[in-house]
């Protein structure tokens, strides 16, 4: 793969309205299942408040993030060759028939771009999309600039993703360019355990049970998790799979774990981050553990963690940065960016 494709610019957009976690837990359904980890889900999660989109649609969140990123980059939208939507929860209209990519193209005036959407990987759709985008750019001389966008708006009363996390609304965008000498994407590794496909799903309007309809919690688009399987089948392999994709991408490019200067990791929960630090013997300052105030932002976590670390000076020139995450499906992904 062309080793000179890099992250030219990245940014995110979060709605200004915030909702305290105490209010979220008061408003939403109480989970009835038990969680295997020895933690108090509500008290120990480490997130105090969530960003909540009011009138803005999911596509608006994508478009706002794209505009912020384009403005920061000073790139003319007409230069963009590819737009790939990597949103990981349902959008304004039903997928895979529709995606927000075309609406983003229209809104920003990226008239020559080809648009598509990657709809796999859950929060790891960021890594899957990087893999596809870099491959397409590398294989085709005519693709020089790509815009990756995501916008997630959680249905009302479904911010509580027990037992994993609590989710904010927001959007993110990343501009990839060829011929970069810094922020180069050295490699991307993705792994999937497909037998877990039906552990975390949204049944959809065509598949809903009558008891889900109406009432305070009209769960038309709410996620349903099989907590027993989560405890028995996902938790035991999670860190093993993280190790597999991280070592996989390091092997791709001939690097070692100790060569990595900084890790971008999702903001699922405080205990999840602690488990990651412990498993890989990483000091807290080497991992993006300071973004919990945003709440978990699905695939956008990777962009928020990266952008915040850059702006705070935690990533420096010459640093090797590992971005690693997992997501529904289930997939795990890791990418390496050379600063």
């Amino acid at each position: 793969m062309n080793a000179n494709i890099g992250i030219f610019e990245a940014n995110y957009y979060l709605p200004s309205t915030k909702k305290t976690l105490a209010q979220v837990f008061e408003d939403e359904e109480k989970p009835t299942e038990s969680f295997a980890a020895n933690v108090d889900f509500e008290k120990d999660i480490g997130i105090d408040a969530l960003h909540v989109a009011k009138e803005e649609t999911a596509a608006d969140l994508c478009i706002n993030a794209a505009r912020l990123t384009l403005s920061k980059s000073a790139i003319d939208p007409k230069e963009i060759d590819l737009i790939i939507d990597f949103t990981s929860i349902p959008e304004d209209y039903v997928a895979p028939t529709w995606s927000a990519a075309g609406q983003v193209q229209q809104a920003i005036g990226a008239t020559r771009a080809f648009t598509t959407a990657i709809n796999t990987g859950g929060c790891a759709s960021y890594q899957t999309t990087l893999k596809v985008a870099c491959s397409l750019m590398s294989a085709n001389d005519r693709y020089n600039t790509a815009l990756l966008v995501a916008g997630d708006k959680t249905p009302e009363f479904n911010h509580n993703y027990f037992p994993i996390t609590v989710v904010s609304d927001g959007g993110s965008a990343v501009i990839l360019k060829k011929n970069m000498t810094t922020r180069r994407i050295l490699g991307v590794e993705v792994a999937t355990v497909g037998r877990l496909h039906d552990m975390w799903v949204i049944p959809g309007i065509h598949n809903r049970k009558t008891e889900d309809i109406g009432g305070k919690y009209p769960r038309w688009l709410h996620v349903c998790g099989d907590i027993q399987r989560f405890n028995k089948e996902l938790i035991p392999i999670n860190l093993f799979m993280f190790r597999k994709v991280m070592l996989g991408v390091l092997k791709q490019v001939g690097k070692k774990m100790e060569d990595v200067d900084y890790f971008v990791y999702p903001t699922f929960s405080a205990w999840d981050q602690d488990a990651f630090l412990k498993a890989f013997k990483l000091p807290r300052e080497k991992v993006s553990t300071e973004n919990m105030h945003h709440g978990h932002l699905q695939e956008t976590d990777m962009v928020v963690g990266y952008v915040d670390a850059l702006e705070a000076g935690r990533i420096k020139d010459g640093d090797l940065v590992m971005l690693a995450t997992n997501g529904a499906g289930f997939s795990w992904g890791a990418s390496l960016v050379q600063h």
Partner: protein
Amino acid sequence: MRAAVGILAACCHLPAHKRLVEDLFREEGAGYSAEVAARLGIKEVPLQDGAASETASNMAVAAGREALQRAGVDPLTVDVVVEYSIMPQEYLVPVWNMSNKVQAEVGASKSFVVGFSGGGSSNFMVALSSAAAMLAENDSLKTALLVTGDTTIPGNRVLNPADPVTVMGDGASAVVLRRDAPGGIVIDTELWSDGNNHDVCYIPGGSLIHPEDINFYRMQLDKARYDAFPKAETLRQMSNKLLERAGIKFTDVASVLCSNISAQDETEMQQAFENKVSPVCATNRESHGHLQGTDFPLNYLSSIESGIVKQGDYVLGVSHGMGATAAVSLLRC
């Protein structure tokens, strides 16, 4: 691209049950006339009849298994499963995607999965182009399984009943791609989008904007905008661009494969492509209707099996889909 990537095998898995288009029109309250029948050129479509084996994902699994078997590929050597469906799946995409289930059930446990949204009938070529790029550009990836399963929404098989555009059937297909394959070489793909038409065809109900309205859970088409979009001309211009890039003349192309949307659509394609659209497209359209992403694998297989396309022939696959997206792929068989 560094290495040639080609199609090792393809397979379609269609429900055994078929319905006459005339009956579907009656059921859906759409007017069926001799003029409509001639314009569509579709006699019957395969539709699943409620059997568990004929859910979209189960048909995709069956197609995937058969394609791997035809290719002589051990599922454990598949590096990536690429999904190109168009219709809503058993659970909501993108939280769920059938590619994960396919990966598990065909035994491709060493692979990762990728799925594509928003390209309509062009989704297959988006998947083909992306998979070919991944195999050509990543040393660790050699074999891809492309797969789809599409089942239509009951009561929504006639697209735009007031002025019908096509009749959609159910089906699944799979294609095995490999770096250094001996034939079926994917030479190049040209992709194009017009975001102004992002909502020319979509399903409004069951989404964030209309979460609870089952009456909107239907594929809707803005016919005026659909008609205004210069589909055949756009595809011919894209083909010319792609052929020029590949250093091949249109006269060297043996055959053009288009989507099985309607007789009217095919007539426009025949005009734009100088009557090179393969006769298999009309035959498959009449007997199967529009099978979304499966149209291309079905027509490709028919072309090979009928001998219309021979080894070494250049074939153009052309498709326009919602999004609006247009796609052209050039293959050397």
